[in-house]
């Protein structure tokens, strides 16, 4: 398992940097260096994620003003919108890992992709559930098959497909390859999600916050929304970081056990040879 990781894990000290153009990327492919760096960053990311999320959600759910026509139902937005952003942004990170996996055979990218899948699926699920809870009182329907809702549902299935596919092979390398291809094919869905509300008539409203124009939202609602979004992003990063660290450690332990098992087998053979 994890041939690429094992190869560098078995070396006692950090390996000499490979020559040529790939050197800069390979620097980050070294799992030992990743573990040291991630271990140092992890407590800060986790603590910050917790604090920022609590501040953002607390502000949004209890202190932000109610909307003039949605009333208190507008507070669902402080969970729905950040999780929707994270659903798409998480998929971008999954696609980036898949790209690094296919082009550079980056071993950490494989492990990270496996960890991103369930977290992205959870945020997409949260986005769909909160959207549905908002849709019933506001639109009058739990669910409609408009382009935005349907494309986000497809995103959810892409995540689920990736989760299943990377675990479906006896040889994990083959699972990583297949999952990476699925993730990259699914990238076509991202512009569809983003622009569905502009390209077609949808029941879902178009974007409130755009890169080009001023947001059509009062500042007293915008601030808690942005803080929640930062908090959710940090939660995402903290979970994926912790998962990837655990995966690297697991493969390292597995490699050590295998070495030990080999040694034991050799000793046994030798002992059998020695006995007359």
């Amino acid at each position, binding site marked *: 398992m994890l041939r690429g990781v094992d190869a560098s894990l078995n070396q006692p000290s950090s390996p000499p940097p490979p020559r040529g153009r790939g050197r800069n990327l390979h620097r980050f492919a070294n799992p030992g260096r990743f573990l040291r760096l991630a271990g140092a960053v992890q407590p800060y990311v986790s603590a910050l994620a917790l604090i920022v999320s609590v501040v953002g959600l607390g502000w949004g759910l209890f202190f932000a003003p109610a909307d003039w026509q949605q009333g208190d139902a507008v507070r669902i937005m402080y969970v729905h919108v950040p999780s929707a952003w994270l659903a798409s942004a998480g998929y971008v990170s999954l696609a980036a890992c898949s790209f690094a996996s296919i082009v550079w055979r980056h071993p950490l990218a494989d492990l990270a992709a496996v960890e991103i899948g369930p977290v992205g699926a959870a945020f997409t699920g949260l986005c769909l559930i909160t959207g549905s809870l908002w849709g019933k*009182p506001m*639109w009058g329907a739990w669910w409609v098959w408009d382009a935005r809702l349907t494309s986000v549902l497809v995103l959810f299935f892409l995540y689920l497909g990736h989760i299943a596919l990377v675990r479906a092979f006896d040889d994990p390398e083959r699972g990583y390859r297949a999952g990476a291809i699925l993730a990259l094919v699914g990238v076509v869905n991202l512009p569809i999600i983003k622009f569905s509300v502009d390209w*077609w*008539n*949808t029941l879902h409203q178009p974007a409130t916050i755009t890169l080009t124009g001023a*947001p059509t939202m009062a500042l007293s609602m915008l601030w808690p929304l942005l803080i929640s979004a930062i908090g959710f992003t940090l939660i995402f990063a903290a979970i994926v970081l912790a998962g990837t660290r655990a995966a690297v450690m697991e493969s390292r332990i597995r490699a050590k056990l295998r070495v030990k098992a080999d040694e034991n087998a050799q000793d046994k053979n030798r002992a059998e040879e020695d006995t007359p």
Partner: protein
Amino acid sequence: MTRKKRRLYILLACGLGLGSATALALSAFDSSVTFFVSPADLEAKHAESGRTFRLGGLVEQGSVKRTEQGKTPEAQFRVTDGRASVDVVFRGILPDLFREGQGIVALGVLQKDGSFRANEVLAKHDETYMPRDVADALKKSGHWNPDAGPPPPAATWNTLAPKPAKGG
């Protein structure tokens, strides 16, 4: 060419092919991806009566008439997109957000007389989020009438609010 480079180019070529295939497929299915048709689309296409579809637009100002047929409430209103408008009849309970000037999507059948009999009315929320006090201030100062359409842009909300009166 190194193997890495070759993989990169193969991947980019696949992406290009897949992207253009998706774009072509989506533009071919354009009309079925669209959730509703607007009154102007309806007029341009001369849609025949008897077919079920979704009609979307703003509820025209001053057009809502609510009556009661037995126990079920009935509402008559006009749906407009600024260029054309269609008469809509709906029997049943309207969503809370339904009001004049609000965007709605109605599922129903076009009648022979050109009116639209709706079986289901959904309210469409726009992308504006406004606290109650801001809405009240805009309405009081006369900068915005909710029945007439969407509010002015959020960037102007503070400057639009009436200045405190100086000594009566």
